[in-house]
């Protein structure tokens, strides 16, 4: 059988977001601008992935920086670092760390969907030949990355992989599946470029980016949906998945 993650839950238990309940209401998020950058990463990253999941072959990670112009908590931006893997047979991005640009957004994302999110400065700036994402935490730059040389592609060519977060649900660690819908209005593809990633600030010590894969930036209507599945992080998801609705 495929390899499994090797995350030691005891090491992360104290900092897990507490999900208020699993009856989260959906958010509609029109006209979001999503920058996604993908790299292959070093082989020894299984220790960052929950034991319920399989590492991707080869292991890779994505940086996703999104600007939401409208939401129930107002405009905000969200940056995520995700280690990609498999939950059973399904590709999923496990969120290692995240930064939101407003306190209201950060609180809601932690309590409703279990994002391990802190409050910081998140910017997404478009130049004629690149789109640059910058993130600062406590005034310190912790991410600078870009899509370089964007070229138009069809929206249908972009496949977004659903997210899983690790959170405390009723006091117990659970993987929470976050599976938004996307209606892409505009899409471009380019090369990813990384200038800075302070991995400890993303709970990703040991993660190293090795080979660039691809970068995309899209404008799309999306959402944060109601939670449908939670999974036991310690056993294979084929045995440990619970359907909420």
């Amino acid at each position, binding site marked *: *059988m*495929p*390899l499994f993650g090797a995350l030691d839950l005891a090491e992360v238990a104290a900092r897990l977001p507490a999900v208020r309940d699993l009856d989260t209401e959906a958010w509609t998020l029109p006209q979001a601008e999503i920058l996604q950058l*993908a790299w*292959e990463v070093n082989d020894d990253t299984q220790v960052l992935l929950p034991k319920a999941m*399989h590492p*991707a*072959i*080869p292991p*890779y990670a994505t940086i996703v920086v999104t600007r939401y112009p409208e939401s129930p908590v107002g405009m905000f931006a969200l940056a995520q670092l995700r280690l990609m893997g*498999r939950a*059973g*047979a*399904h*590709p999923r991005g496990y969120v290692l760390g995240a930064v939101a640009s407003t306190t209201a957004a950060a609180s809601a994302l932690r309590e409703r969907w279990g994002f391990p999110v802190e409050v910081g400065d998140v910017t997404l700036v478009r130049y004629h030949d690149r789109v640059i994402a910058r993130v600062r935490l406590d005034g310190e730059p912790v991410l600078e990355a870009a899509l370089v040389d964007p070229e138009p*592609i*069809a929206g*249908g*060519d*972009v*496949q977004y*992989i659903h997210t899983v977060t690790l959170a405390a649900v009723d006091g117990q660690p659970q993987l929470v599946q976050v599976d938004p819908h996307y209606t892409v209005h505009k*899409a471009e*593809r380019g090369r990813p470029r990384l200038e800075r990633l302070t991995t400890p600030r993303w709970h990703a010590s040991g993660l190293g980016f090795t*080979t660039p*894969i*691809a970068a*995309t930036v899209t404008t799309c209507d999306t959402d944060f949906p109601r939670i449908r599945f939670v999974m036991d992080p310690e056993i294979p998801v*084929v045995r440990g998945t619970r359907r909420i609705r």
Partner: protein
Amino acid sequence: MKFGLFYELSVPRPWTRDSERIVYENALEQVKLADELGFDQVWAVEHHFLEEYSHCPAPDLFLTACAMITRRIRVGHGIIVCVPEFNHPIKIAERTAVLDILSGGRLEVGTGRSATWTELGGFNANPDTTKKTWDEFVRCLPRMWTSDRFAYDGEFWSMPSRAIIPRVYQKPHPPLWVAVTTPGTELDAADRGLGSLGLTFGQFAEQEKRIAEYRRRIQLCTPVGEFVNDQVNTVNFLYCDEDDARGVATGRRMADTFNYLASQLISAREAYPSKSYQSLGLLPQLRRQATGPDANAQGGEGLCMGGPARITAALKRWESVGVDRVNFLLNTLEAIPQADVLASLKLFAREVMPAFAAGKG
């Protein structure tokens, strides 16, 4: 209808020094038996870096071994990845010619372009251009096999005039096929006069529609080779057991394991958005079969697992939708003991194959 074997050569962890050797030796024993039992062909894939799923990066070597221990069974080299970072076209022409000679003219050649980031990224190949490179390769290959001297100046590769030797043994040349996983590729095959080497499992209605369109389209083709190969080849699982329920359960275990392994691969489109890979191809279907509503369907639609009667009925249905050949995956991760795999082959040959002998309806 003709029957064959289809090898990915999956190797279960933990890997020991002998893990791969056992898988290869078991496969060779199966091929030797299949030849004696009257199976028509054995196919081996070309895959790279696909841990556990397929440890078969050099199918021409495996097929040479197959040819050396058999007398009649044809050897299907496919698919060969027609992307220059994987295989230079001159080397493809040369190596296939050698295999055709060594097998006494028993070679079939399948072509394709890889569908995983794992492989494309590993070879630093550009996913945007693989369809174009495949097209160049398949148009060159028959001429490389048959011309006294060959020169070429293309978009993706070029060569000055040379004699490409040795020549293929078959005249005019081995049959050519195209791997068909994504909808629409069967039309690419038809337009070029190439056989359709289907790599999807099950789903009669969908396959029937695609085969009908292939049959219609190939009548209008401009063949890239010296003859039109208008045959439809598909893959299936095979586990045949006197006890139908046990056969279904054992076959289901093999199929589930295969589908689960396949779903671990990174499809090209998952990582690298490109119009060259607009469809997700085989993987979503396998994921659905591994975990979705199809997963518990007894035996699955059209899958060849169970007792001889059930398997005969499934194959009759495939025959009725226009399939000419079916290649069987016999095992995954060695989940089925070798003795049981061999027994399944023997039972299939004794109880099922006669129903499809020439002249049987």
